[in-house]
């Protein structure tokens, strides 16, 4: 069962062995870490097949990896074995403008996939925020992001995939629809070596609206009301003013409102409205203005120029980076039923108070994805006990409320204990069929 048994059969593959393995191959952005015994940089499905076949026979673990930008340790080889890097299998093979599809290899970066679609006058909507993630990693975690509310997650855009099974067999998803679970399977059910993605026509026009509220609960409730009224916002984000202020103190410009006509803003609802053209978007805004009275928002601010939209999105994306730049920080990313977001945030504030952790929130109100962040001036080691207890409490609460600790970043190795029992069972059946020897990304589980 050792790596040495496998090595002779890997001739022709690019294999990296200690001490030449770069340290990055042993970690991602979650903090989980373990170095693999070997790294294989694959450049074709045939190479992946050769590797998996050999490893299955020898019982050696294989952990597929993209850009290593994950937040849950999904690509960390917690049981050692081989890390299969797909970063160099990164071609964008074809865009069919008429059919609105793109064939792409898993190592292509999300930013390149998006840019290529735009070059053809189309768009690829899923966007978890991290543009330097690979599309393969997005498929493995079924990444969503704020736009998921209207546009769904990565799996909604996968029309077909070339999958290498643990046995080394290469299959196509469209021939085996029962293997759909591979998308979102975090590399535990098969290795995707090519994806056919569905692309969309871009919206003719869009605008980002900011609805500031004097109290957070009204803000959290407003999104549901707006969606129920038939608006289809591409994003509906809860922006906690505490987070806006903190991020603003780091970047020098809060951008989002903190105070309005002398009144303190508790939270802002950021909505993206889309339409065929400017007038169609304007019309939606005007009818929304009537609803706004009832919603009790303080104002409706409009960003509809490229500069303003860019500024909003940059400020929004700075939340995460400004938190990570703090001396000590923690984050819990979960999803809960959309109507229970406020309840979850109230719980987090309460438990945070007990533990001495002051959470700040950003939530996808439509889908129920909630990011709770906290920062501290304490040293990391001093802050860890309370912040870890805080994050654990939040994971457990998300499950209790009927949501998922996996949130939108996957389960990986850091959130396994929070996967619901029935989900485990359904997954176990597929796992037994596709990877009976359990060599694919062991130590991980999925939703």
């Amino acid at each position, binding site marked *: 069962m050792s790596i040495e048994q496998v090595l002779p059969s890997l001739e022709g593959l690019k294999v990296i062995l200690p001490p030449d393995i770069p*340290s*990055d191959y042993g970690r991602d952005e979650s903090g989980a870490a373990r170095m693999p015994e070997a790294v294989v940089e694959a450049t074709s499905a045939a190479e992946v097949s050769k590797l998996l076949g050999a490893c299955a026979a020898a019982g050696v673990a294989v952990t597929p990896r993209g850009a290593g930008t994950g937040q849950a340790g999904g690509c960390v080889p917690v049981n050692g074995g081989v890390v299969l890097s797909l970063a160099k299998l990164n071609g964008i093979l074809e865009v069919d403008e008429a059919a609105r599809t793109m064939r792409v290899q898993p190592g292509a970066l999300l930013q390149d996939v998006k840019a290529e679609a735009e070059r053809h006058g189309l768009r690829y909507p899923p966007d978890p925020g991290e543009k330097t993630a690979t599309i393969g990693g997005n498929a493995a975690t079924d990444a969503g992001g704020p736009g998921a509310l209207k546009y769904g997650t990565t799996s909604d855009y996968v029309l077909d995939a070339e999958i290498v099974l643990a046995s080394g067999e290469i299959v196509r998803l469209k021939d085996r629809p029962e293997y759909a679970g591979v998308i979102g399977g975090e590399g535990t059910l098969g290795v995707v070596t090519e994806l056919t993605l569905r692309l969309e026509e871009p919206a003719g026009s869009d605008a980002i609206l900011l609805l500031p509220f004097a109290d957070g609960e009204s803000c959290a409730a407003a999104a549901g009301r707006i969606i129920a009224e038939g608006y289809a916002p591409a994003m509906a984000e809860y922006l906690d003013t505490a987070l806006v202020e903190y991020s603003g103190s780091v970047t*020098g410009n809060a951008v989002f409102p903190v105070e309005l006509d002398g009144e303190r803003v508790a939270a802002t609802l950021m909505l993206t409205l889309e339409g065929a053209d400017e007038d169609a978007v304007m019309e939606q805004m005007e009818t929304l203005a009537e609803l706004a009275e009832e919603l009790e928002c303080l104002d409706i601010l409009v960003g509809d120029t490229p500069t303003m939209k860019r500024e909003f999105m940059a400020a929004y994306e*700075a939340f*995460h*980076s400004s938190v*990570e*730049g703090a001396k000590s920080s923690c984050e819990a990313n979960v999803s809960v039923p959309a109507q229970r977001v406020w309840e979850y945030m109230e719980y987090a504030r309460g438990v945070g108070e007990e533990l001495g952790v002051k959470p700040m929130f950003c939530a996808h109100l439509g889908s129920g994805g909630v990011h709770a962040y906290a920062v501290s001036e304490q040293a990391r080691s001093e802050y860890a006990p309370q912040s870890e207890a805080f994050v654990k409490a939040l994971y457990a609460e998300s499950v209790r409320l009927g949501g998922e600790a996996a949130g939108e970043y996957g389960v990986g190795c850091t959130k396994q204990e929070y996967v619901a029992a029935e989900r485990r069972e359904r997954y176990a059946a597929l796992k037994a069929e596709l990877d009976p020897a359990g060599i694919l990304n062991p130590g991980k589980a999925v939703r």
Partner: protein
Amino acid sequence: MGKSEYRDMWVYLEVNGGKLHPVSLELCCEARRLCDESGERLIGVAAGAVPESELAQVKECGVDGLLLVSGSGYERYSTEAYTRLFTELCRKYRPSAVFVGATANGRDFAPRFAARLETGCTSDATELIYNPESRDIEFVEPAAGGKIMAVITIPELRPQVGTIRPGTFKHAPTGRREVVEVINETLPCPAEEIRTRLLDYKADERDAELDISDSETIVCVGNGVKDESLPKYRELAALLGGKLACTRPVADRELLSNKLQVGQSGVMIKPKLYLGFGVSGAVNHVTGIDAGTFIAVNTDPDAPIFNYCDYGIVADMDAVCDELIALLKRGA
């Protein structure tokens, strides 16, 4: 009046607190070269008191003459006094070109006196070419965010006014001329013309981290940098005894202060060692770098930065940074 009636190139000698601004010497050296080609004389122009030691430095740059103006109104900088001064001097002496360092004050008065004279003014040229046929100076400058180079000329009118960023040209004195003519002018500016009053001046608290212009080692991050990776580049800079800097897009992303922005619209640097990570190599960035050793790391083998570097590595910037940190720690 035809342009042949205008002769001599001028460099404004900016003096603050008895000290000559380095850009004045840089411009004297560059204009010396142009004058050698055009056969014109190079004149340094200063107003107010200038210490002899500073003038000696100017002479070393090969000026043919010094035009020293005295009179009230030059004790401190004012838009009005300097606009008036250069307008009157240009009308009287008719230089063919006036070069002004693009300091805060240089950029304040140069366009204004050019407007009063109804002549052309260019800014931020990175290269100056004398065209012997047209007898015009060609001001070459990056345009449209550095995507293209534009040649600007002032073909009909004189003087040709140009503001030039500090650090664009080298201070490489070619030596004193045998004869340096000194012209003394008295040209007071009436107090009632001055319409701004200095109430207070506060020197910036010198945040050494933010002062990259004289640093011998610069670790520069470009748009390829991930937000969360910044601390490791800071660490690398510290281990190398240097400072962290960035490109315009990174400053625009507000990841780092615009005081750390290297290039045309930022700070010009002259480090012994420059390491660029994830820097694409836009012209307006690289024209701001005059490095002893220039190292570039980028995943894109076609990135233009590799055309400016001495050594390059095509690889993930974070992986290279980590490895370099590890080696520096081990080697230390």
